[in-house]
């Protein structure tokens, strides 16, 4: 079975985000990119499936700063093939464009199961997985937190609010949007990644021209108004605790 895990890089929220001069996009000067957390889980889930029932795992993502690191990390976890998609990503490629462009590569890879994060913090035109599934004419199930493969099908645990889980049976080939891998992504020692840099080769595949249709056009971007901000309580731990006790009394829970 061929499993493909797809990732993208998103702004690291540890950094202060700034909006560019036009007011329609993030200022990329100060942007630090990090793997989308859910995609990290998708890669982990792919590796877990390989370890459990054998599969060939390919991991691919766009050729942006930081992608090599993700790919080498994936290789040292056990990915058989690591691919970066080259092309112009600076022109704000949206998910529609990416999904269309990646679809042909995925056909070449003859993927039976495609795993990708259920969402990313920059998604403005839906999630990658759902769009991709349709462009490949495959079924899609998102919010998945556990996958098992049984001859020609997968059984996925789909999460609903309130802790309810549905076991969905999906015919292969299929695309799944991963909410969480069965176990948190493992730690990969730096020396292992360095080893992978020597032994693994990152394949490069060109992406077709971006077709942005289907995405949104941003009119303006802004930070949420501070007006709704909480009343901040300052002081020492003791003073704050005393104030909180006062609030509890006001609300009437004491």
């Amino acid at each position, binding site marked *: 079975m061929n499993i493909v895990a797809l990732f993208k890089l998103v*702004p690291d929220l540890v950094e*202060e985000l700034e*909006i560019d001069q036009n007011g329609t996009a*993030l200022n990329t000067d100060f942007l630090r990119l990090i793997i989308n957390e859910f995609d990290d889980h998708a890669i982990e889930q792919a590796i877990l499936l390989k370890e459990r029932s054998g599969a060939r795992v390919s991991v691919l993502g766009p050729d942006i700063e930081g992608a090599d690191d993700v790919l080498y990390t994936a290789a040292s976890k056990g990915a058989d093939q690591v691919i970066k998609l080259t092309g112009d990503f600076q022109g704000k490629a949206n998910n*529609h464009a990416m*999904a269309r462009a990646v679809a042909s590569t995925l056909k070449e890879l003859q993927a039976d199961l495609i795993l990708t994060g259920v969402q990313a*913090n920059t*998604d*403005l*035109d*839906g*999630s990658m*997985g*759902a*769009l991709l*599934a*349709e*462009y490949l004419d495959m*079924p*899609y*199930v*998102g*919010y998945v937190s556990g996958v098992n493969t049984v001859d020609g099908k997968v*059984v996925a645990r*789909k*999460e*609903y*609010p*309130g*802790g*309810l889980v*549905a*076991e969905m*049976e*999906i*015919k292969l080939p299929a695309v799944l*949007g991963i*909410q969480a891998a069965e176990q948190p992504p493992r730690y990969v020692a730096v020396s292992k990644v360095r080893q992978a840099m020597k032994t693994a080769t990152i394949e490069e595949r060109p992406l077709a021209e971006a077709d942005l249709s*289907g*995405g*949104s*056009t941003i*009119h*303006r*971007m802004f*930070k*949420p108004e501070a007006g*709704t*901000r*909480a*009343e901040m*309580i300052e002081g020492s*731990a*003791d003073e*704050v*605790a005393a104030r909180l*006790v006062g*609030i*509890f009394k006001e609300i009437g*829970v004491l």
Partner: protein
Amino acid sequence: MNQDIYVVIEHLRGQVADISYLMLVGARALAQTTGGEVIAVLLGHDAQGLANNMAANKVLYVDHPALAEFTSDAYQKTLAGLIREREPRAVLFASSSIGADVSGVLSARLNLPLISSCQSFSADGRPISQICGGKIMAESDLPDTTTLLTMIPGGYKPEEGQSGKAPEIIKMEAPSLDNLRVTLKQYIEPEAGDVDISKEPIIISVGRGIQNQDNIEIAEELAKALGGVVAASRPVVDQGWMSTSRLVGKSGKKVKPKIYLALGISGAPEHVEGMGESEVIIAINTDTNAPIFNVAKYGTTIDLFDLVPALTEKLREIKKA
């Protein structure tokens, strides 16, 4: 294309999700700018009764045994036909386990634009989305064609989407729903036997900032002193430090306590979705820029490991007195 705003009603096991009502309110706001009607779209089997209290001009109801429980394939097929045929101005989906499975696929299948994570609409009908974990808002143009939108809570009040008057219900023909590629095998119920946090008036919730499993004890002691229960955000549950039954947020429980004390929780939209409607939210987080402070009524940046024991101590003294 007409100017109506469609809302795909989300329901699970006989219960309409709050977000559905919230979307009806949002749809009304949008319809006022387009000049169309608000039309609810309900898919199900023997589920017509669910539509009775919806604040919509009309309800389109599709009944089919294959729609009794949600599966992405059956919903996609049904809605694809319906949208193609009726060409509304916009279709609202919940940004959820159900809505997100359907909206993206339909966008690609019908070649219609999709704008996700909308929290509200501007006065001139532009969708405003929340991205980057709640740190950035993006206002998009509404394209000149039928547009699909997914909505997140926070912009409107679900109560306003209910009405005492039953709307007109129009029954629609379901397409052929054979050869589905996705089928529901079974539901797995959440772990039982634990407290139901959605019914608790006082919740002490812990997030990543709690650092490790042992530290949860200080939250438990505070809960004991205050007479509440401990809940958690996703990272804490993912680590296996607390059971799923205590999870607050999009994939967990929705809570509306009198007091929600958030300890070391950053306040990602997925979490806020589960607790945003609490009466009083008090946030304790050392990161001044944490989005939790945008939903909290009170906040402090004192280290929770200093504050919580002090608070517990004070409460104990009061109890003794």
